[in-house]
């Protein structure tokens, strides 16, 4: 019985919006991106734990059955992986619950945990349970133009401190009395960033999973822009004042690179917070952002652990650098993000 199999399985974070009571049978021979699959753990290697829908990282054992989503993944720090071409052997390529076939691996991580896909979950009509059917975000508004001010958090690479920077901004804005919508707009479905934005004080957090994407590998700027519009609608429902939007990976990642080359996308933001893992990479990202016609509002990220690196960035760019702790200060973040809040400037008098 599928229902018994599903109820006994360990369910991944990325399936959080899916109504699993609809699962009635297996269907098909090759999963589409976003299809839910039941996979058996064959051999535990890199990922020994799986994030569940509550954010707990549950331990895995050989023979466990998992409910995952099939999707490609792009990660310079872990794996490049393709959509499985059929049932059978594949790998667990992200702890959030992505089943895919590894094509490239960073030498610093172990080979991915091996899986065996037993079937693609479908409803009683035989229609696959795909994340697209379980979207939490409202439809995009037809109005054009920005309704809510938004700042983009852009990084030099994975582990550059993007989420730390985004969460520091959320915390600082919250401390200053703003209602903040947190958003992870691109990347691979995963819990830590999502929960961390909640913990930082965001009144709501949304990501591409809420728009039916397991990952955003291969998406177009137009698709991402639509997700952003839908997140904005949700932010309006939550009476948010401002959106802090994190973009995954680094500026050289193909989809990210296409996004910042898109005038429609760029025009949606008042500015960028850069998270750099080192001084030269931060300076490079600042140049790319300038070329895109976007204001850099501040530089932060992992590099700020080093005062010397901070000096190098300031020398190279003449842009302000703040640690995540500093960004949590309401005075600092309100000044950094002042261009988001038009009409807030009040002259203190016309003296020199």
């Amino acid at each position, binding site marked *: 019985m599928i229902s018994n199999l599903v109820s006994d399985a360990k369910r991944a974070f990325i399936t959080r919006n899916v109504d699993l009571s609809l699962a009635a049978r297996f269907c098909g021979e090759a999963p589409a991106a976003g299809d839910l699959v039941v996979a058996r753990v064959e051999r535990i290697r890199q990922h020994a734990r799986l994030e569940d829908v509550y954010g707990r990282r549950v331990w895995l054992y050989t023979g466990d059955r998992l409910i995952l989503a099939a999707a490609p993944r792009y990660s310079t720090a872990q794996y490049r992986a393709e959509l499985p071409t059929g049932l059978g052997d594949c790998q667990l390529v992200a702890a959030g619950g992505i089943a895919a076939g590894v094509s490239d691996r960073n030498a610093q991580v172990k080979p991915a945990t091996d899986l065996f896909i037993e079937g693609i979950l479908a409803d009683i009509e035989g229609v696959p349970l795909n994340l697209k059917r379980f979207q939490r975000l409202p439809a995009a508004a037809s109005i054009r133009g920005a309704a809510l001010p938004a700042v983009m958090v852009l990084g030099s690479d994975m582990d550059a401190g993007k989420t730390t920077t985004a969460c520091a901004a959320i915390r600082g804005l919250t401390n200053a009395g703003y209602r903040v919508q947190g958003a992870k707009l691109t990347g691979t479905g995963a819990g830590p960033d999502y929960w961390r934005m909640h913990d930082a004080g965001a009144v709501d957090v949304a990501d591409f999973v809420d728009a039916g994407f397991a990952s955003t590998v291969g998406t177009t700027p137009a698709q991402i822009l639509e997700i952003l519009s839908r997140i904005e609608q949700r932010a309006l429902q939550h009476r948010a004042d401002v959106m802090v939007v994190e973009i995954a990976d680094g500026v050289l990642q193909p989809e990210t690179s296409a996004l910042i080359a898109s005038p429609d996308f760029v025009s949606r933001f008042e500015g960028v917070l850069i998270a750099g893992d080192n001084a030269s990479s931060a300076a490079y990202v600042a140049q790319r952002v300038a070329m895109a*016609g976007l204001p850099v*509002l501040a530089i932060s990220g992992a590099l700020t652990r080093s005062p010397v690196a901070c000096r190098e960035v300031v020398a190279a760019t003449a842009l302000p650098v703040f640690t995540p702790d500093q960004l949590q200060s309401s005075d600092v973040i309100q000044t950094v993000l002042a261009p988001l809040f038009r009409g807030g400037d009040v002259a203190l008098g016309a003296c020199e």
Partner: protein
Amino acid sequence: MSSEYLTLPAPGEMGELTLTAAQSLNCLIYRPTEELRPERILVAVHGISRNYRSQAAAFRSMAERLGICLIAPLFDSDRFPNYQRLAAKPGQRRADLAFSMLLLTWQTARRLSELKIHLFGYSGGAQFAHRYAYLYPERIATLSACSAGWYTLPSSDIAYPYGLKSWPQWLGTPRSEELIRLPVLGLVGGQDCQRDASLRKSDRLDRCQGYNRIERIESWIEHINIRRSELGMANHALLHLMPGLAHDFDACAQSGLMLPTIEQFIQSHGR
């Protein structure tokens, strides 16, 4: 050389530019007939009258002779009401940030491995210039400050904004020791001793820096030179008094006392 995100005027011409990457900062740009040093820019910052066109017109021929581009930014009063102080309180747009993005876009578009500016400011523009130099000394080739109403003195014993003590965190970290080492020229009119309506006045400021623009620039230059002496530096910051001139940019520019002094200073000290 121009690019799709930075369009420069033709050689020998003045053009106006608004850069979205620089928070839509508007500026006038003069490009010399023969550009001898692309890695240097002459920047002229207006006072609170925001006469950036007068600044551009006054410095145009100097830029031509030096063979470097001239930028005269406009810090509009709506968005940058307190540009003199970069920003005067938390939550205000930082004028330095918009200006830095202008320079970064320029440097990127023109593929320059280094970019330094000969920074001049008049009155409120001189305030902007010296405070910008505190934050970004690496960007400065020379600093010429003329007739500011008051200064942030390079002293950690004097409380901000008149000194560096308790400089606000939201405004970054001042680098006083690096500013001290820069080529610095102070200028002021010999008749610029009026306590006019636009001059900031308070007992504390009067005690700290003097009663008028002449006394205050003398105080600023003296503080720099005391520290230079402590550091064993042979060269001193210069102070140039312009006889007969009051607080009037156009009069200073036309007098033949201000612009040649600045040009000679740049030629002598511009690395």
